[in-house]
């Protein structure tokens, strides 16, 4: 039986775990992009913005339902590729 259109994502509710890895610049690291966004917000007349730092979000779907293994794999991924720990911090959240 056809379920969903051809563009429907393959979601396996039972076995997949979802996680979010958030990568942010360490404090003290100059963020010229954040500064430019800050300036643009000011020119839009948006009040009360003291500063902006730009970061990255990775939404990851994992095979299997073992939470500990997932956390270990994501830590490995963040340390070895997703973040450059010289300049960036990362946070891992298992979201479901």
């Amino acid at each position, binding site marked *: 039986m056809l379920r969903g259109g051809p563009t429907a994502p393959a979601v396996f509710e039972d076995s997949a775990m979802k996680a979010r890895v958030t990568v942010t610049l360490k404090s003290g690291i*100059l963020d*010229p992009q954040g500064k430019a966004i800050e300036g643009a917000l000011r020119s839009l007349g948006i009040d009360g913005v003291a500063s902006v730092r730009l970061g990255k979000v990775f939404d990851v779907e994992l095979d299997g339902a073992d939470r500990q293994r997932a956390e270990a794999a994501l830590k490995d991924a963040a340390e070895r590729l997703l973040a450059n720990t010289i300049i960036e911090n990362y946070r891992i959240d298992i979201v479901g």
Partner: protein
Amino acid sequence: MKSAVLIFPGINRERDMARTLKLMSGREPAMVWHADTELPPGTDLVVLPGGFSYGDYLRCGAIAARAPIMDAVRAFAGKGGLVLGVCNGFQILCESGLLPGVLMRNAQLRFLCREAFLRIERSDTPFTRGYNAGQVIRVPVAHGEGNYVADAETIARLEGEGRVLFRYTTPDGALDPGWNINGAINAIAGVLNDRGNVAGLMPHPENHVDPSIGPTDGRGMFAGLTAHFAQAA
């Protein structure tokens, strides 16, 4: 001098580099694919050229730094082999941990395609022996992320150990924020690893070697490297 030029998807300066290596050393370099796991036997110098490996996705050089060939480069450098990274190649060396620090977005947020003046900080390395310490050379730059950053401790160590090889200066060799084109800490344009065998820089000396197209200030680097191996042989 037997050199090897690495090719990653999205690299686009490998031919310039190969042409310069051939011109200056008299020997055609081997072109080595990123998915290879070995360098050609007898390689003297590995060069990571400029370009936009993997479209600069994630961070410049981040994905190329994890390519299979990089394990071979790490082993080669571990045995004292000479490795040079230019532009994206420098970014890849930093991402792979072979050089300290990281190249961030230019402070002015603009891609720079122009000439810069570089002061050679020391001439007693294989990469700079073709120059005099304090000499200023004129070389092209073409990058959006060349703003060298490292923590204060790393910068202090680099400076203390004389591992800053090149700095952006005025044409007279003076430090001036107006001539530090991308806002790099201490106007750092290129650095050396602790062992003295891995070097990286953002500018493109390989593009200033042929008098028929302009200045030849880049020749010193490749002439020096060639002389280094001629002497060793």
